[in-house]
């Protein structure tokens, strides 16, 4: 696990991945953006989680994916998995 991952750093990387996966400008994605605003449906969510797994070298269990409802959930979920 990388040890130099600060909170802001991690958030920024998650937001960047979401923007890239959704083909949006980075500035269009904030930690408070809703999935609706970003046009993220369930398949998009699975695609984003795939990109996050590769970016952070983590495995996100299916059960966790089902509970993700927002960008904030994604950031916090990644933070938890990176720490564990």
């Amino acid at each position: 696990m990388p040890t130099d991952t600060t909170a802001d750093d991690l958030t920024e990387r998650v937001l960047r991945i979401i923007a890239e996966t959704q083909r949006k400008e980075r500035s269009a994605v904030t930690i408070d953006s809703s999935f609706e605003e970003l046009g993220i449906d369930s398949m998009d969510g699975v695609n984003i989680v795939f990109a996050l797994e590769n970016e952070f070298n983590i495995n996100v269990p299916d059960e966790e994916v089902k509970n993700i409802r927002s960008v904030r959930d994604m950031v916090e979920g990644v933070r938890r998995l990176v720490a564990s």
Partner: protein
Amino acid sequence: MRRVAVTGLGVICSAGANRQAFLDALRNGRSGISPFCCEDCQELRFRNGGQVKSFDPHSFMTPKEADMIDRFAQFGVAAAHEAIQQSGIEWTDELRESAAIVTGSCVGGQNAEDQGFREVYKLGRPRVHPMTIPKTMANAGASAISLAFGITGPAFTISTACASSAHAIGQAFQMVRNGEADCAITGGSEAPFSYGILKAWEAMRVVSPTECRPFSKDRNGMLLGEGAAMLVLEPLDAALARGAQPIAEIVGFGMSADAHHITQPSAEGAAKAIARALKSGELNPEQIGYVNAHGTGTTVNDSTETRALHLAFGEHARSLAVSSTKAMHGHTLGAAGAIEAAAGILALQHQFLPPTINFTERDPECDLDYVPNTARDASFEYAISNSFAFGGLNAVLALRRWQ
């Protein structure tokens, strides 16, 4: 237009290695789901599936013939043998020239493809087996059946993901109904238990880590399955004239595209295909007694399909018996339409409702009669079989009891 009889039926799947065994499984709610075996598959997030455990292709073809085709095509030939044997057709030169073969397959010869790619990517070998291409092609099942029986009429394969073999049977039905073919061997086959394709299913996060519980509130995904079903279709009058015993009729076929989403289903699109199948068979919704549902066991499919049934059947939805046999044999992808049409045909023939097994709890979003856990005797004349594919392509077959 000619009436179309089903005069032969062959089935092979995890719930039953032949027609009679499949019937017994449907009647008794006996599951064919078990931990599957495949090379490199130990670390997948799911371990159960509808894998056919004892299949000997050499019962149906020579070892040399078996070597030339993938497992999925071997299943197709095996089911075709059983169907043709039941139909009692005697092959003449004329019949061989006019008979059609229409098969469905979603992923083709995955075992052969996976093995070939494993050789070069993983094992670093410089060459793959020369039969990799012809074993992988999705039409290998249709081709193997034509070779096995010397059939030289129109033959082709339809690939519409999980609706492949329903579209195939529908096409064959139309050819026999319109007079383009005097006999058709039709259905589908699939054998998706190889590492690459299973990893791809894992990535979609739609496969259950435990078991398939269609329409149940605690459902958590589908399970994959393999196998085949083949039907022999003939014009009803000609079948009766030669003394054949029809086992059912196909009376209607409906198709639609959702134009909604590449993976998420649409109730409106599915309802349209159901309505078109009824119209094609000149049926009123009230005439349908049983629906063999697509019923994958995913959260989204089962609630969406329920909404589609409400849209298509109105008040009559409350009186329908609806079940998903996928809980017993898994989602057999390109073979699903055919195996589930076979379930519908056997249900009509023997006048019972196959159960939706593993059903534990009612879901407010799935508010119909799903024949939970135990088969029931019933009296009904018509059934439909639903197939709704990824990509939003839908196919519905309307079936009639023969008596």
